């Protein structure tokens, strides 16, 4: 295992490389635009490190991959779920709100969880205050909390946080 990247230089390089890939796609691989793109991506990467200093979290490629798979399948389920409710004549919804205490640390992990939950079946992030997340639920009779905890676990893996760390962070 490598140590966490505390060097802004590494973040600068990684962000610059990611931005360059985006530039390449947006210009449809146009080679004549690449020189200009290099300048722009360098500038934006520098600016992003200035405005959003590296948080100390390191994205785990495997965790990210597993998260993407989870996210894609669950968003399909979410879409089908709402469609099914909408198309049934009885309109089986039971809206309500629940408030949960999040186990994830502040910053990007919580933010990613809140945004992800808005696209997951039956949940919509309404308010995030500290570690309290209020969710609007399409059907409060469903095991919402269980789903949220599973999503939380997936998000934790993206940032390389283990469940035990999360458990300890609660106290």
């Amino acid at each position, binding site marked *: 295992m490598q140590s966490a990247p505390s060097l802004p230089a590494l973040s600068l390089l990684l962000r610059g490389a990611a931005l360059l*890939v*985006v530039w*390449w*796609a*947006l*210009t*449809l*691989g146009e080679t004549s635009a690449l020189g200009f793109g290099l300048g722009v991506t360098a500038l934006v990467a520098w600016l992003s490190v200035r405005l959003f200093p590296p948080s100390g979290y390191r994205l785990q490629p495997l965790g990210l991959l597993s998260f993407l798979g989870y996210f894609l399948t669950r*968003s*399909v389920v*979410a*879409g*089908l*779920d*709402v*469609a099914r409710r*909408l*198309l049934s004549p009885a*309109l089986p*919804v039971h*809206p309500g*709100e629940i408030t949960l205490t999040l186990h994830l640390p502040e910053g990007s992990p919580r933010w990613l969880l*809140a*945004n*992800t939950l*808005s*696209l997951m*079946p*039956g949940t*919509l*992030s*309404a*308010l995030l205050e500290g570690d309290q997340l*209020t969710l*609007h639920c*399409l059907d409060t009779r469903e095991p919402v909390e269980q789903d949220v905890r599973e999503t939380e676990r997936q998000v934790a893996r993206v940032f390389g946080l283990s469940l035990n760390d999360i458990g300890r962070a609660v106290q």
Partner: protein
Amino acid sequence: MIDSAVIAVQVVLLVLGCLFFAVGTLGLFRFSDTLTRIHALTKVDNLGLGFIVLALLPLAPSLAGGVKMVLIWAAALAASATSAHLIARAVHVRPEHSAVEEAADD
């Protein structure tokens, strides 16, 4: 032979995408409150967009074109999730407040 199979899959995906968009619009009318409507818009429409993007991918002129389309899809997803949260938050914080009077005293 393979070409027609690809086209068949594309057509199926396009039809699915259209169906989901139609259901999303239906949700705007069938659901009675704002928050539930946001559920319909975000989840169903994003699935519709996903199917449309998948259907269009074989038409992309180059690898970069395909990546660009996936990026647009990701941007739309992020935009949708963020918008949903912001509107939900606004409704949640002041549920009974109509913002008309707010805007008026500006």
